[in-house]
């Protein structure tokens, strides 16, 4: 499977000042967290694949 879907559960509150953020053309910053259902536990390990990051959160 070349395309790797990655769902991200973000337990975060969207507030606070907006610092610099990723733009199209930038390197996708590392996702630091607990990885499940995966042999990899970092974006670095899946470099070379096409990845769809699907952001979600728990309320």
């Amino acid at each position, binding site marked *: 499977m070349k395309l*790797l879907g*990655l769902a991200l559960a*973000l337990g*975060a509150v969207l507030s606070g000042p907006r*610092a610099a953020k990723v733009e199209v053309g930038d*390197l996708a910053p590392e996702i630091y967290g607990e990885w499940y259902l995966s042999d990899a536990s970092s974006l670095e390990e899946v470099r070379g694949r096409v990845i769809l990051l699907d*952001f979600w959160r728990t309320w």
Partner: protein
Amino acid sequence: MGIAYPIAKVKGESADRIYGVKGFPSAALVDASGRVIWSGHPSSVPRGEIEKALEGTAFLPRLEGKAYKKVDKLIVSREYGKAHAEVLKGLQKDSADETLQGAQVSIEALLEKMQGAANAAVEGQDFGVALDTYSQIEKLFKGHEAAKLAKADAKAVEKNPAAKDEIAAWKKMVKADETQFEGDFEKAGKLYAAIAKKYPETKSGERAQAFLSRHHM
């Protein structure tokens, strides 16, 4: 539940802040080089972008069937040089084996594509990208003649006086990219600014400048 994709649980607001997620659901598409090529609502992921990105991956199709277990294992572990040798060995025994014929074609096509990309980068004076591509060929095709060739070609690039600035800029670029990858945009911005200033005439300098422009720095 049949969830067939990895899930990363992130505490705090680090990921959504860095990725600029303003609402949910939200998605981003990342290509093989690790760059974001699209972001938006997951219902509108552009199919064309996905296919284009997939073409840029250095992955080979798997081989099904017990007889091809060894080759398939090498393909999965991305030891394409060894896989190629194994395929040729199999074809010596049975030259009419269509699965192995197909594998030979796809391995050689990938190698040709990568060599073409490296050579095009040299032509375009994009020596950092050329070195990077040569080193990928070396890694993927270890044990194959192509790996030795790539090593020699990389050496020639390193010795080329015209490549000196470009390579120096590229090395700094790798460092800046790492910093950006870690999510420290401010520090990365400083590194990119230094590259753009010192090496304005290089491809890396241009890329550093593009980062600064994207981020209004």
